[in-house]
């Protein structure tokens, strides 16, 4: 059985290109934040290429077609980039411009969610069940984790950072996925 792509296959080249572009974009954005764009670009491109080789060289745990993996990577990167750009430029804009700027990550996020939806639709029945149960555990876990957070917010009158909520959601989803994969794996 073929478990990885051949070096001359179109998918392999597309994976390398996607990894390269994704790495370069994130590298530049992070480089800007740390004051060294060139270093960020170089490290990002190298890590992106490594990611392209990595996803080409192993059997995917889920049955996503390669083009969907690439689409998820690109749209996810676009989402992160637009969030970063907004965070960096937040102080420079105001009023309607600020609202429009805040809408851009929403559009990128919608594209990302659409890509994830397409990927889940391409799975077989058991893998879809794994994803559904993981999402259910993630949702329930996030709701439970938010209770003490909300109580602390009320008692200290200092709202929690939105990033904490995102981190809790992602962590709970990962816990749910590990749990269900262990159950069916």
């Amino acid at each position, binding site marked *: 059985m073929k478990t990885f792509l051949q070096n001359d296959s179109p998918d392999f080249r597309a994976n390398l290109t996607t990894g390269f572009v994704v790495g370069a974009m994130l590298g530049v954005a992070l480089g800007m934040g740390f004051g060294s764009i060139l270093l960020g670009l170089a490290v990002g491109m190298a890590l992106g290429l490594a990611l392209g080789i990595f996803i080409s060289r192993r059997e995917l745990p889920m049955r996503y077609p390669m083009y969907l993996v690439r689409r998820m990577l690109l749209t996810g990167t676009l989402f992160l980039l637009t969030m970063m750009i907004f965070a960096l430029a937040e102080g420079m804009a105001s009023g309607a411009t600020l609202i429009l700027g805040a809408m851009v990550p929403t559009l990128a996020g919608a594209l990302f969610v659409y890509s994830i939806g397409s990927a889940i639709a391409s799975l*077989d*029945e058991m893998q879809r069940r794994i994803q559904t149960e993981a999402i259910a555990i993630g949702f329930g876990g996030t709701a439970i984790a938010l209770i003490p957070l909300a109580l602390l917010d009320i008692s200290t009158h200092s709202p929690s950072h939105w990033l904490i909520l995102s981190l809790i959601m992602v962590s709970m989803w990962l816990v749910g996925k590990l749990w269900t994969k262990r159950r069916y*794996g």
Partner: protein
Amino acid sequence: MKNRLKVLRAERDLSQAQLADLLDVSRQTVNAIETEKYDPSLPLAFKIAALFGCQIEDVFQPEGQG
């Protein structure tokens, strides 16, 4: 639910990956069915039975029977 998938697959000298390709599912799904961690849907169960040229009850039996 108990099943004879592993035996039927071995009789036809098929690997899990080959069977997965024939059924259009992942190898992990074939493995989960064989180890009885996952019960397939009715359409997939019929597909498996048809692939091995037998009745559905020849492949799958409820717990406590067989």
